[in-house]
Structure formats: structure tokens, C-alpha cells
């Protein structure tokens, strides 16, 4: 039964890819927004590509992987496709997993872009054996966070987009993206510890030039724990709220 539900999650994921990868809000909040954010805070501070690249990769993955999944639940509520989906023989956790999977893939695909920018500028990612699993785990983690943000039973994608932006935006500034963690005052670092983005940025820094702050094991462990919490919470809250959406 587990395998069967996993296959169904893939079916849901394929549907999501077909429908949501090219929606305007996804392109705006998932791609344009992080580019502007990056330009506004990263450029013009006399930093080299090498200094900027970890932040670029972290922002790209963070915003793109959390861009699609908050839209799906309100969108399907509004377009009245949810009730039929829920009437089919799949678990709600399967639907959620499928949605997260679509977001996960989108995040990974888009993250390739800054990696290529880095390569063109002569900066390669040396520790791929850390980088690749790090990207996979973080993409799942951020997508689950995205799903969690879409649990309020709204039928307006703009609402969940707002919630997700309000949560995502501050995280960017406390996660060691523009300022390395070591340079943040100690009281500020306390906030960094509660942001999953911190641990991913740290992994990217390690992968490029080993300028990490935490041990790599801690980064992975933290991302894993955050993923677990976000996924379980998202499933629980969706299970409670989906009947209210219908």
C-alpha cells in the first residue's frame, strides 16, 4: 500500500508540474522576486562573485522550492478540483507529498542557473558530494515549509502568497546570506539558529570554499529535523482543513 500511494504521489506531482510550473505568480514570486531581492541587497557592496554565489544559490533554492506549493491548495479550492481529487482512493498525505514533490523539482531545476553562473565566472563547487544531498534535502525542507504555509483554508492564492512572503522575506536576512554568520552579533545569531535557510547556506559555503560556520553534520541534521516537522505539521493541518475548503 505504501508503494501504491508513492506512485499516486507521483501522479499528483506530474499534474502539478503541468499546471503550475508556468503560472504567473510562480514566475513572479519564484523567480523575479528573488532576483530583485538579490540585486537590491547583494550588488553594489563591492563583493566578488565568489562572495555572492552562496547567497545566490541559497536564495534561488529557497524561493523557487517554496514558490509553487503554497499556490496549489488555494488554487484547487477556487477552481473546484479539490473535491474530486479527495474523492479518489488516495490519502491526504499522498496529495501533500505529490505537491511537495513538484515544488521540490522546480527548486532543483532553477537552482542549476546560479550554479552555472558560478561556473562561468570560474567558481566551481568543489564538494559535490555534500552539495547535491544538501540541495535535495533543503529543497524538500523548503517545499514542506511552503505546503505548511498553504494550510489556512483560503481559496485565494494571493493570500497564501502573502503569508509565504511575509515568512520567507525576513528569513533571508537572518540566515547568513548577505552577511556570513560569523560576522553577525551574537544576539542576532540566536535568530539564525531557528531558520532552516541558515543551515543550507552554511552547506553551500562549505561546498564552495569550506567557509562553513557549523559542522556539516549539524547542518544536515538540522535540515532533516526541520523537514520532518514541516512535513508532519503540513499533513496534519491539511487533513484538518481540507474538509473546510470543500
Amino acid at each position: 500500500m505504501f508503494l501504491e500511494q508513492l506512485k499516486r504521489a507521483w501522479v499528483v506531482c506530474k499534474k502539478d508540474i503541468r499546471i503550475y510550473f508556468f503560472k504567473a505568480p510562480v514566475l513572479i514570486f519564484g523567480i523575479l522576486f528573488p532576483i530583485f531581492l538579490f540585486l537590491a541587497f547583494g550588488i553594489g557592496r563591492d563583493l566578488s562573485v565568489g562572495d555572492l554565489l552562496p547567497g545566490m544559490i541559497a536564495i534561488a533554492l529557497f524561493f523557487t522550492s517554496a514558490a509553487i506549493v503554497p499556490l496549489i491548495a488555494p488554487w484547487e479550492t477556487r477552481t473546484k478540483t479539490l473535491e474530486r481529487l479527495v474523492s479518489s482512493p488516495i490519502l491526504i498525505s499522498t496529495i501533500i507529498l505529490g505537491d511537495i514533490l513538484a515544488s521540490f523539482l522546480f527548486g532543483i531545476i532553477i537552482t542549476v542557473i546560479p550554479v552555472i553562473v558560478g561556473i562561468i565566472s570560474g567558481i566551481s563547487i568543489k564538494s559535490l558530494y555534500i552539495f547535491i544531498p544538501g540541495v535535495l534535502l533543503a529543497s524538500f525542507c523548503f517545499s514542506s515549509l511552503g505546503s505548511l504555509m498553504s494550510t489556512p483554508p483560503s481559496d485565494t492564492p494571493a493570500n497564501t502568497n502573502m503569508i509565504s512572503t511575509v515568512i520567507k522575506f525576513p528569513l533571508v536576512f537572518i540566515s547568513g546570506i548577505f552577511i556570513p554568520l560569523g560576522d553577525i552579533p551574537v544576539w542576532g545569531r540566536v535568530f539564525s539558529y531557528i531558520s532552516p535557510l541558515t543551515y543550507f547556506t552554511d552547506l553551500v559555503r562549505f561546498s564552495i570554499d569550506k567557509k562553513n560556520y557549523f559542522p556539516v553534520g549539524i547542518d544536515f541534521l538540522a535540515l532533516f529535523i526541520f523537514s520532518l516537522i514541516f512535513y508532519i505539521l503540513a499533513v496534519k493541518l491539511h487533513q484538518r482543513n481540507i474538509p473546510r475548503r470543500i
Partner: protein
Amino acid sequence: MINAIKVEQLTKKFGNINAVDNISFEVKKGEFFGFLGPNGAGKTTTIRILTGIINATSGKVSIMNHDIGRHKLEAKKLMGVIPEVSNAYMDLSGWINMMFQGELYGLHRKELYALSKELLIDFDLYSRKDQKVKFYSKGMKQRLIICMALLNRPEILFLDEPTSGLDVSSTFMIREKIRNINSGGTTIFLTTHNMEEASQMCERIVIINKGRIAAVNSPENLKLTVKKLQSIIVAFDRDMDKKSVYSLPGVKDVEKVGDKMRIFTEIPGELVFHLVDFARENDLKILTLNTLTPSLEDVFLKLTKEGNG
């Protein structure tokens, strides 16, 4: 023989509202079952519980002997569902929608292709299968949703007001198809607020009002009740005594409604002529004259009165 659907003391509360209030009924395998009630009666709520979309507050539902609370997935595999307000994915083509639905039920590719083609041809959609659903008409969308619900060859088909808002020809086609599906052995659970639809299509009808079962009825009996409750509303320029019109042929009962009279009859067409003659003989002018088909409310009142007395 086991029942296709068995409902025992089902209740659903939304806050203080009892949307469904302690109802019990059974649907036999292969039966064409109708669930008739006015707006807000609890039809959609009931169907959503039976199809495992929402949970009941209390009570028990078995679908082909699977408890919907405990064996939801097994039960869902046996049914096709056409919700009241529902859509296919607008941004996908009809064909891709069929593929998606089939894969959700784990159909194999070859079987899925063949069955999708067969269904889309049967429902007159095949030539438009590669077009996005957003360009379909309302009737086409509804037909597509029915096709999607049939992909898993369900043993029970749930339809929540499947023809509401459709024109005559689409309605006719859909009713015809549902009848054929039922002839093939599929149990049908149909909700409607349309008495004519219920009496035309169903073998047995449960009438629900305010979350409670008001009556269990056969279509013949329902038709008969409807017939008995037909009436004519008439107003003359002078006040007339009720008794004077009683003697006209076909009059069953007369009620005064303000300055008008409501005359119950099973033959409204003929009675109109008698009323015109009556007016002429008594030198009366007819100010208004309307025939009235009974509302669902009238029928309830009548049936529940009969049930009690």
C-alpha cells in the same frame, strides 16, 4: 445479498446546525436510488459523507460492506463520484484529465487508453479531446466529469445534481447515459431537487428535508402525489363562495387565498374550460387564472401527512 450502501443513524453537525439528522437507509445492489430534497436539505452533505470526503459526526456507513470510516481507500476504489460543484482541470486537455484520473486509480496504460477512447467517443467528446477544458461548454465539462468518474468501472456511481444548469439536450443525453450505466449493473445514487427527474429516473426515492427523511417513496406514488396536488389559482371580479365552485367537475378541494381561490384538481387543463363556462353563466369576469404545479414543499407536506395519518 449484501447492500451496496447501508447507512445507520447518520448525523452531521456544522456548529449548531444538524445538516444531516440521524438518517438511516439502504440501497440495494444495482438499484437506481434517488435522494430528493429542496435546497439545504442535506443532500450534498450526505453524499460527501458516503464518498468519504468529509467525516460524519456520528453514525455508520458501509459501502459494499466496507466501513467508510475504517476502510476508506477500499471503499473509494469501488465508487465513481460526480460532485455538485466540481471541475476538471481547466489548463489541461480533456485527454490529459482522463489520463490523470485513470492513473489516480492505478489503471494500466493500455487499458486506460482504450477505455478513455471508448468513453470519450460514447460521450461525444473524442473530437475535442486535445483541447484545453477551459474552452469546453458547460455541458461538455459535465460530460467529461462523468467520463472521468466512470474510468475505474465503479460499482456505485454517486451523482450530486448532475443536470442542474444544463440545457434540455445535454440533460437528456446525460439522463440517457446514466440509465444505460444502471442497466449495466452499476448502482446509482442520484441527488436532485427536481421531482420530475426523480420520478422519471429512479426506482426508489428517499425524500429528505432539513436533514431528516420525510418519506420513502416509489416514483409512481410520487407522480400520483404530484398529480393530486396540481391546482388552479383564479380570481373573479366579485367575491364568490367556495361552495359554488365545488360542484364543478374534477374539483378536489378549494382554498381561499386572499381574494383568490386555489382549486385543487388532477385535470387542470379541463377545469380551465369549466371555470370559463362557470364565469359566463354567473356573469363574472375572470381577473387572473394560473395553473400551479406543486412545489416540493407541498409534496412533503402531503406525504408526511399521509405518513402520519
